[in-house]
């Protein structure tokens, strides 16, 4: 039994326990507020506009591979799609989701179908679209989609590489708005330069909490904060011990 594997299991169990604990505590005591993230504030306004002015929202889920780390940000994108779907499905131009991976495409169609059934409106399978099956063909398909449809705001929450610049450039040409975050470092650097409201690093995973996708999303953020400072303490302690040759 490798020591690192056991350490890994311990981390996961601590994370799981803290999430349950914080969720229970949050019911009884007042929890600290979340810091302001401008991108999500603008997204709120864009959702409001989608209902009142009938401007369409485009949620892009990226092209992350399912059986890897990239699937996690795909799940966050699906939670946000479900949340937005419920609040804008009564508008006359409900949101459309695009994705560049087969499984994500199917899950986005399922999400729209369940939301339509929940709200009692007619479901349209076209609202979950697969626009391409490789990174660059996904960017090309999404670029064409943005050029053809009248999109008010584009929310990019998923796994992208440098090809995401093609999508943000198409939005720029239509004077649209882009809010975006990804788990890929090069994709983040490109979004930082090209998106109106870029999400940096871990902020992409906080979308569910900021849009009210569920109590567990908020608890996750508090647990991430707790573990963040544990990690900082551990690194500092380890580095100092290494410096003095203790470790």
């Amino acid at each position, binding site marked *: 039994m490798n020591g690192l594997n056991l350490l890994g299991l311990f981390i996961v169990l601590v994370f799981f326990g803290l999430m349950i604990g914080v969720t229970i505590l949050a019911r009884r005591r007042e929890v600290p507020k979340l810091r302001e993230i401008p991108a999500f504030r603008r997204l709120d306004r864009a959702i409001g506009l989608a209902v009142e002015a009938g401007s369409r929202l485009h949620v892009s889920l990226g092209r992350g591979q*399912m*059986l890897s*780390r990239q699937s996690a940000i795909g799940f966050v994108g699906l939670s946000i799609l479900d949340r937005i779907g419920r609040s804008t499905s009564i508008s006359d131009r409900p949101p459309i989701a695009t994705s560049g991976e087969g499984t994500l495409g199917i899950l986005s169609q399922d999400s729209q179908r369940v939301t339509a059934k929940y709200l009692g409106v007619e479901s349209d399978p076209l609202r979950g679209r697969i626009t391409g099956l*490789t*990174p660059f063909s996904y960017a090309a398909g999404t670029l064409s989609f943005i050029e053809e449809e009248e999109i008010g705001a584009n929310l990019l929450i998923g*796994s992208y590489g440098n*090809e995401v610049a093609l999508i943000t450039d198409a939005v720029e040409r239509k004077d649209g708005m882009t809010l975006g975050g990804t788990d890929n470092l090069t994709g983040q650097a490109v979004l930082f330069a090209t998106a109106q409201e870029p999400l940096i690093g871990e902020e992409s995973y906080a979308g569910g909490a900021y849009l009210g996708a569920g109590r567990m999303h908020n608890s996750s953020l508090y647990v991430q904060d707790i573990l963040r400072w544990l990690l900082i303490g551990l690194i500092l302690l380890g580095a100092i011990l290494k410096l003095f040759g203790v470790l």
Partner: protein
Amino acid sequence: MDEIYCPLCGKPNPVGNKFCEYCLGFLDNQENNSIDPGFTKEEETRDSGGEPMADEQHPEGSGDIRDPDSRDQFTEEDKGLGLELPAADSYDWMPGSSSNVESDQDDISPISPFVGDSEGDDSGEIPSWLNDALEDESSPETLEFEEPIEVSEQPLLEEEQEIKQKSPGKLESAGPLAGLSGVLSAEPGVARIRKPGAYSTKIRVSENQQEHVKLLQSLLEDEGQPKPLPRKSPISQQHVLRWGIAIVLLLAIFWSVLFSEDQLALPVYDEGSAEVNRLINQLPDNARILVGIDYEPGLADEIDTTAVPVFNHLMSQGGLLTLISTSPNGPILAERFLHSGRLEYEYINGLDYTNLGYIPGGAAGLISFIENPQGTTPFSIDGFSVWDSESGEPLPPVVGINQINDYDMIILLVDDPDLARIWIEQLSPIITDPLTLSSLVLVTSAQLEPVVRPYYESIPQPVNGLVVGLRGGAAYSRLIGGDQLPGKFWNAFGMGTFIAALIILVGGLAYYVVPELSRTVRGQEKVN
């Protein structure tokens, strides 16, 4: 001249007329003598405000109910039912209304076919006395504008007189006693024996108010019209900036590709590239090399150009290659790279190299390949059995390979930071194991440097050598000498990066400062 006054409208009529010339009311010679004739014409035409009734108040022709045109509007059926001819509602204050009849139901006694019947003339033709009366009124001289009487001012008493005048033997046309004649109305004031007349209301509207009304109406009509979107100019500031950048960059590259004679000096020394060179020099003859191909076709130019000098050096020492990939495009990119004609050596499939194809499942697939290569990829992508010694000799590139650390070197061509980390982390336990002779070398895109360099810098090293981007490839070309592919790109690359830095720096500052300056200038002008 002896005159008699009409009991309905009070107008003077010559004696002997049975019907009033103005309102066609029935003239009864004995009763009318009691009305005071002092009610002269001027008072009739003066409205309450003392203002003379200007003709404009009856614009567009004054046609009244007797106007032949307006009669046609009422079908025979209405008449047949004995219904009163409903006065044409006149909204003369509405400009453009087609009929401008001011009529007052009470002035007009119904021309009901039943009346004709009762007088015994069944021929259905209009009686001659009526025709004469109609012809007199139709001549222009006698046509006078009638002064509309305010219905609301009419005393209730007159209404009762009007009912009494109706012939006593009148047949009941509605209600349960329909068809009977001589029925006394229960309460004349309340029980209406016919359909309530449509009273025209005449609002005194001044000229100014009329203008306002027109304005309001034009506003209402405009609301419905689709307003064309303000036409965006086809060429905006965006386009000019984009075209300018494209033209400058393309011209610079074409110029340096076509006209620059001597190639600029290649980078003198790059630590990572030098280390790879050293490791390849140490390889034994016919070394077994595992090559991971994980980049997108879009970055083929950069990765291939960077990798060509490394593989030329490797092939010069007879290295035998096993190609593997965790992305669908990998196997085809590998074939294209080996047969693109850019390499100095031509390798033969099955002899110098074998292509194991694509391992699906990302990290999970790679873990299973690293733990068990034969089980994960038993066949090459062409369907040949690669490892099986029973069905014949294993292919030369995999002879003696049972597990991953039997390979002398692992080279990874990669453009994505996540894929690079997955490979490094899965291979790290093997590479950092002191007993392992294998070394891990990365040939990557320039965008990966901050992600992969820590693995090269850390101790122990999970990555033993690093060739990053075109700069790394150019440094490697200088180490092995000869006319390598990076050299062709190097001058244009230098020109392109310089121009890009210049545009971003100068253009960015100008794009920010100029509007700020003009805004402050405008602000000062407002202040002065």
